[in-house]
């Protein structure tokens, strides 16, 4: 019998079936953040449901400080209620968090959860406090300066804890407030401001009227009208400024005895400071300056012109003579100095790659050339060197020019600073007159370096013999000294300073690449990482938009990649189809800088390097990468390779074949 009783007791799990409490707290809680969106999500695990009043919702109490209670923290109530043993989530949006916290990045977020059953007026105890250190990222860096913490927990809805309380009501009689004035009107006609109102005493007798006015809505001036029978007031124009005129009209009771004012009306409007007209006797105007004395000058071409004295003295007449002569000669209305500087663009025949300085030591040009240097940009066909157009000696007297150049240099200082090497075509003949036949150019003119250009020109001013020297570009780059490289790098950095890659224009791209070409991409090792990155991005941008570039711009891009001009388009196409080439272009600048000591390091070398790296990483995949094999046309095979790439490949393929033939021959020889 006893055994049966015990068995029955064991069979019926009475404690299990019992409710735990009327409303159980959540069984679990967690917190996750979205560090990009800057949101916080609180997970709530509902109870097993064995309770009389399962939660209709949950209240999350949270704070940036520990020790959370229902009254010292913020709280929100969830939109969801009980769901047996299930996780449900409440998300704080970024805006929500900004409302509660001035800044959350790297801060602790403490929270506890309470289960609510409003219907049964039942709530659970609060869960154990959890803490989570918020990611110190941008999304949580609110940095709110104009922020104040919300107060109280009244925002929690429903806040269901109700207790029986005895309310003691203390009635405080509010201070007497006079009735409002009515029909308050303000009239402004550009001078005074007229106020008018109606008022009838009510329960409280008005003791004074107040007109408050302000021009910043913060600092107020007050006019107190103690005559309560008055119904108008004129605010004198001396109080009126230019701006927005804010005003309020109040009726006040006996302020000394605790009565207060009532604001009857308020508004604002624009006013302008009134300036009363003044009668002033103006002094007689000063006599006009005497007409400058003009001198009639006979110009070199025989014509007469009027000049002021100072114009004769400062060389204006001489310069005008030069301008006229040069207009007849070159079609450019410019002074000799401007012509020397290359400002006069003569018509180009066809652009060339190489800089040619023609030296003709044998010819005696003393008779046919002037004493001063004339740098004439001129385009020549490959096999033909045009002789410089003879310039008559009397057109440009030696002494006069010297004086004029100095003056003009002073006068046109700004223009000189703007000398840009772009103005000099890539193929130029520098015709230099020399007195000493053996004299040679001791320095080339790399890029648009003004200093060097000036130096060279100054040194060669006295030369009288025409020189023609062919100078390959590579030599120019190699000859840059460390100081020159540093100077060029500084120029590149200056150009790059204002460039935003996302908004870069074609002109900016070309400008940067031209600067890089001046120094040589491999010399960028002296530049900062940021500069290299920008240059790299600019090169990629140029390749991506090659169809938008003019021929000259393509030539600039070709130079930086050290390929032929025609190859730029091939590279642009290859970038779209071949990942290896795309990667090579992406890494070109970086690798070129790393291989600064390698001679003739080009994009083809980068392509090969990238392919080798890919091969070492995954040899089989690289060797059997025949994605577009069916689209290949054998008639134009290798047309998608740059000339440089072909040459580099030949350097490898030919020796391989020759070596194989040699080894076969050796084998046959040994057998025989």
């Amino acid at each position, binding site marked *: 019998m006893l055994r049966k009783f015990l068995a029955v007791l064991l069979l019926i799990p009475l404690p299990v079936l019992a409710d735990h409490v009327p409303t159980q707290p959540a069984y679990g809680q967690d917190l996750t953040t979205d560090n990009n969106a800057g949101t916080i999500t609180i997970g709530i695990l509902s109870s097993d449901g064995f309770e009389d009043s399962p939660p209709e919702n949950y209240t999350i109490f949270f704070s940036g400080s520990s020790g959370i209670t229902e009254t010292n923290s913020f709280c929100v109530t969830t939109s969801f209620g009980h769901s047996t043993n299930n996780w449900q989530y409440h998300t704080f949006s970024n805006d929500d968090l900004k409302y509660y916290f001035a800044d959350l990045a790297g801060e602790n977020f403490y929270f506890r959860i309470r289960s609510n059953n409003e219907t049964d007026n039942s709530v659970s105890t609060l869960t154990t406090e959890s803490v989570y250190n918020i990611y110190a990222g941008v999304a949580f860096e609110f940095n709110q300066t104009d922020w104040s913490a919300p107060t109280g927990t009244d925002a929690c809805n429903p806040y269901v804890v109700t207790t029986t309380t005895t309310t003691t009501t203390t009635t405080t009689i509010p201070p007497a407030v006079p009735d409002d004035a009515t029909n308050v009107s303000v009239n402004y006609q550009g001078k005074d401001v007229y106020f008018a109102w109606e008022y009838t005493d009510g329960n409280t007798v008005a003791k004074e009227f107040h007109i408050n006015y302000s021009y910043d809505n913060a600092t107020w001036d007050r006019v107190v009208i103690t005559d309560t029978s008055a119904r108008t007031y004129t605010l004198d124009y001396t109080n009126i400024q230019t701006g927005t005129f804010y005003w309020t009209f109040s009726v006040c009771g006996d302020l000394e005895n605790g009565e207060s004012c009532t604001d009857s009306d308020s508004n604002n409007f624009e006013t302008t400071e009134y300036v009363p007209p003044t009668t002033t006797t103006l002094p007689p105007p000063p006599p006009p300056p005497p007409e400058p004395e003009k001198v009639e000058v006979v110009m070199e071409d025989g014509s007469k012109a009027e000049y002021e004295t100072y114009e004769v003295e400062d060389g204006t007449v001489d310069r005008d003579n030069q301008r006229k002569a040069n207009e007849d000669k070159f079609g450019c209305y410019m002074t000799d100095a401007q012509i020397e500087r290359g400002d006069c663009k003569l018509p180009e025949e066809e652009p060339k790659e190489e800089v040619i300085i023609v030296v003709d030591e044998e010819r005696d040009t003393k008779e046919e050339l002037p004493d001063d240097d004339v740098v004439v940009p001129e385009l020549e066909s490959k096999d033909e060197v045009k002789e410089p157009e003879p310039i008559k000696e009397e057109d440009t007297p030696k002494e006069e020019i010297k004086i004029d150049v100095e003056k003009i240099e002073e006068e046109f200082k700004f223009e000189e600073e703007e000398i840009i090497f772009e103005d000099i075509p890539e193929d130029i003949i520098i015709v230099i007159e020399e007195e000493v036949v053996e004299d040679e150019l001791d320095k080339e003119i790399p890029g648009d370096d003004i200093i060097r250009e000036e130096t060279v020109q100054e040194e060669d001013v006295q030369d009288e013999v025409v020189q023609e020297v062919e100078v390959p570009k590579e030599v120019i780059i190699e000859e840059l000294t460390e100081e020159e490289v540093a100077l060029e790098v500084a120029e590149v950095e200056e150009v790059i300073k204002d460039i935003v890659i996302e908004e870069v224009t074609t002109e900016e791209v070309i400008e940067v690449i031209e600067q890089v070409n001046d120094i040589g991409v491999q010399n960028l090792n002296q530049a900062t990482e940021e500069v290299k990155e920008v240059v790299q991005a600019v090169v990629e941008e140029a390749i991506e938009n090659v169809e938008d570039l003019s021929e000259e711009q393509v030539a600039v891009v070709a130079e930086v990649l050290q390929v032929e001009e025609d190859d730029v388009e091939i590279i642009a196409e290859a970038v779209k189809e071949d990942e290896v080439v795309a990667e090579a272009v992406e890494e070109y600048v970086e690798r070129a800088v790393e291989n600064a000591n390698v001679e003739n390091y080009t994009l083809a070398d980068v392509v090969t390097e990238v*392919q*080798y790296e890919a091969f070492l990483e995954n040899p089989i995949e690289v060797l059997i990468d025949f994605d577009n094999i069916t689209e290949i046309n054998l008639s134009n095979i290798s047309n998608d390779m740059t000339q440089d790439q072909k040459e580099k490949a030949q350097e490898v393929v030919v020796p*391989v074949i020759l070596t*194989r033939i040699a080894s076969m021959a050796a084998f046959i020889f040994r057998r025989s």
Partner: protein
Amino acid sequence: MIKKLWAWFVEAIKETLNLSWTLVGLIIATLTLTGSARQITGLATIITLGIWLITIKFRK
């Protein structure tokens, strides 16, 4: 049959080893090329190697 296949397999490895330097050269050549030329060279190398190995007995 399996014995024959095994014998061919061993022979193929020997032949491939004989071609080591050539294959190295061809792989290097392939890697210096880009675009269609690379694909054609790679494919030609693999096909030729396959034919070379299949025709071992025939060539002997």
